[in-house]
């Protein structure tokens, strides 16, 4: 489990594709607990940054370390904006990501589905769920792998309000205390509700990193001020 003692260090991380730099040399030191919200306008580079942390993209330079050693992929779980649902039942979707299916894990899967309000749908074809239910399933499926770090790429972008509320409540009450969460959003109100700290990205550069309180009360950069006031989307 991630804890207050752990530290995530991002060293000179950058990502180029076809001669274009999508993330400029980024250096950050983050606490190993709480919710870090990656905030920024559309196309700022939030998802690229998150995918670099997940290991889905290989950085053009730099590295990310978790405490002293390299971050192990096994300890991370990624939930994308578009829920990826396998063509099988809700419960089988949950169990698919496990290396070994034990009776404890099966029980845990059912508990997590219950927490996500999907307990009555565990034998239903997962593809017939609503968008919000699919995203809740994806979140539960990520949690069952017991990740130290949970990386969420706009998980509530296209879902109904009750699912958004349920997911936020779950993250704050059940997950925040035991895991590090990276949460990408461009919804300022959501960032206010969730964030312990904010990483503000603009044009592929991290231009602000501070506690959520500081960021919203006293943004240091002109771009962040514009973004908070809604002048940049």
């Amino acid at each position, binding site marked *: 489990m991630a804890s207050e003692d752990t530290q995530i260090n991002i060293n000179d991380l950058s990502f180029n594709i076809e001669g274009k730099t999508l993330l400029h040399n980024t250096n950050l030191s983050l606490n190993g607990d709480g919710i870090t919200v990656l905030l920024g306008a559309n196309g700022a580079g939030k998802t690229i940054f998150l995918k670099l942390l*997940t*290991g*889905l993209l290989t950085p053009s330079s730099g590295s990310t370390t978790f405490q002293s050693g390299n971050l192990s*992929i*096994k300890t*991370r*779980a*990624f939930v*994308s904006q578009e829920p*990826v*649902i*396998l*063509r*099988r039942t809700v419960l089988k979707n949950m169990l*698919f*990501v496990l290396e070994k299916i034990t009776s404890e894990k099966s029980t845990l899967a059912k508990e997590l589905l219950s927490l996500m309000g999907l307990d009555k749908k565990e034998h239903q*074809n997962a*593809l*017939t769920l609503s968008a919000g239910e699919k995203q809740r399933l994806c979140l539960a499926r990520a949690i069952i*792998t017991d990740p130290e770090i949970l990386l969420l790429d706009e998980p509530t972008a296209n879902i109904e309000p009750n699912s958004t509320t349920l997911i936020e409540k779950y993250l704050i009450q059940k997950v925040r205390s035991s895991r590090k969460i990276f949460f990408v959003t461009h919804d300022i109100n959501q960032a206010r509700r969730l964030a312990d700290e904010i990483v503000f990205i603009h044009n592929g550069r991290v231009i602000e990193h501070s506690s959520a309180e500081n960021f919203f009360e006293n943004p240091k950069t002109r771009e962040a001020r514009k973004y908070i006031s809604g002048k940049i989307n």
Partner: protein
Amino acid sequence: MNDISEAFVSSLGLILFLDAELLEIILLSFRITFYAVLISSILGIPLGALLASTHFKFRNSVVSILFGMMGLPPVVVGLFVYLIFSRSGSLGWMGLLYSPTVMIIAQVILILPIVCCLTFQIIESLHTRYHEFFRSYRIAKLKSVIAYIVDSRFELTTVVLAGIGRSISEVGAIIIVGGNIDHITRVMTTAIALETSKGNLDLALGLGIILLATAIVLNGFILFLRGKYLKTPGSTI
């Protein structure tokens, strides 16, 4: 015109009274088709899934060659297999020429690229949806390939049916390697060719009707499945 209508009525009689010769030919056709499609599916579906979900250096070249092989001329395949299995050929010692086994081999060569390429097309679109998820959870290659096949099982049924359709109606290759020997390698298509040339239109028409009915039923079934799967959540057709 009278000859044709008489032959047609006579052929219906052969079908209705389950003529022994007709039945023998039909059963051998179905047997060869069954094994050819079974082997092609066992090899072609996992291979297509693997190709669709794996990136390697010469992948595009391999895929291009495979797609090119979908249009292999059956007579050329027949000649190729004949040369290999003829007495002086490299596998001539097996003594398989003019046997149903070598007919199955020729059909597998013809059907395998079709099954493989159609599988590739179906699973490639699924791979676009799944690959990031599989990577982020470090799903093993074998497990992911199995998942691709399981999750596209409905669509893959149409691939198998397409293989059956191709196999049952094939004549060029199997007439060369099978020799169209009575009671041994005579199948519907080769029998139609022979009986027509002999002027025995009753049997030729009877077999033609069965073959046509098989093709219509298969295509109808494919259309039915496509319509059904289009309504299935997650359809990749």
